[in-house]
């Protein structure tokens, strides 16, 4: 049915790419969903919950593609839920806990724009992914609009919101580049046309994008620290807690379904 890459090296590299993308969306979505019921405005409660659902939907679609590529008998639920915390390959940026509203907005802002640069790097080499990315980009447009609106409002909202936003950006800025942690199979992916550029180049595009928004608001850019080879490993205590939450139903009874 789907044209899975023939070459073993490309297949492995593609699986790695899909896993990082899926885990990123999955963890980001679950963290955002922690606002359900307690967001600062009723309308924001609906908005953030809806965004979280979008991200989980994206994760699901990516895990489904990954399942087809791996073809090892695992389905998307097994991939999403049946791993130990240290086996997840999301960026360390997403290990940060939900925090207060400024923390969430800062994390979402740094991640959303990074994800946009990554999605813009996906080429036509593996058609199911290229097709999926076209749909994802249409939904992500709205996520970007929402988070940029909030960055602007917190930055200009008075001393307290601005102070909290600056602190949040500083605390998470060091981990922000981990979204662009180099993949071991990048060269193979570029040759197969699955990536149009390496992740280091995508990071450059991300920084240019951040500059257009942060500089006019007088906010600091994340520091430039060079590639982080272990940027998707060594996950935090807060992620272990989150893992406990999102696997609790699955672990309570093996093979449980709706």
């Amino acid at each position, binding site marked *: 049915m789907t044209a899975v890459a023939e070459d073993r090296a490309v297949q492995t590299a593609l699986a790695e790419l899909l896993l990082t993308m899926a885990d990123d969306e999955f963890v980001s979505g679950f963290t955002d969903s922690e606002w359900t019921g307690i967001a*600062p*405005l*009723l*309308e*924001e409660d*609906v*908005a953030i919950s*809806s965004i979280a659902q979008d991200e989980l939907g994206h994760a699901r679609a990516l895990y489904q593609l990954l399942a087809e590529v791996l073809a090892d008998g695992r389905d998307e639920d097994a991939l999403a839920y049946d791993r130990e915390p240290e086996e997840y390959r999301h960026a360390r940026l997403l290990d940060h806990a939900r925090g207060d509203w400024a923390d969430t907005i800062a994390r979402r802002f740094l991640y959303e724009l990074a994800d946009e640069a990554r999605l813009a790097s996906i080429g036509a080499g593996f058609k199911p992914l290229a097709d999926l990315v076209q749909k994802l980009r249409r939904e992500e447009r*709205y996520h970007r*609009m*929402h988070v940029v*609106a909030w960055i602007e*409002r917190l930055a200009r909202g008075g001393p307290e919101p601005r102070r909290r936003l600056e602190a949040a950006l500083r605390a998470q800025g060091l981990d922000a580049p981990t979204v662009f942690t180099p993949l071991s199979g990048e060269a193979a992916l570029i040759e197969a046309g699955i990536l149009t550029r390496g992740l280091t180049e995508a990071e450059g595009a991300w920084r240019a994008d951040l500059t257009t928004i942060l500089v006019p608001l007088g906010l600091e850019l994340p520091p430039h620290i060079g590639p982080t080879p272990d940027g998707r490993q060594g996950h935090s205590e807060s992620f272990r807690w989150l893992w406990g939450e999102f696997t609790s139903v699955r672990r309570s009874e093996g093979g449980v379904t709706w």
Partner: protein
Amino acid sequence: MTEGDVMTTVAAARAGLEPYEVFRQEKDGDPMRHGGNVLAPDPELAVHYARELFGRRNESTRLWVVRRADIQVLEDPDLLDPPLDRSFKKPGGYVMRDKLAAARARAGTEKPAARAESHDRTGGRRAETK
């Protein structure tokens, strides 16, 4: 924080919010119908929230989001329900449908189709396809 502090903070936060009325359209060509309202600090976020509460499940093709303070309201009974009898303004007893049917009968013509071939269902002219 004491409960008094919390309530003051809540009141202050809510002071920055305004109601925006949301009108929605099920499909293109339908009239805009009032769907409800949202509270928002400004027009840009009002549009976001309107989308979340009235459009996130593909239920609308179009939303109008209007600041309630910008809506002009007329509810003056002197203007809308004046006291003197003006029933002569209503054409009661003159039913157009019956008059047209009688005219067609005299002329021997058919009732035309509800919509002309040359126009689509929103009243727009169809493009010429040769």
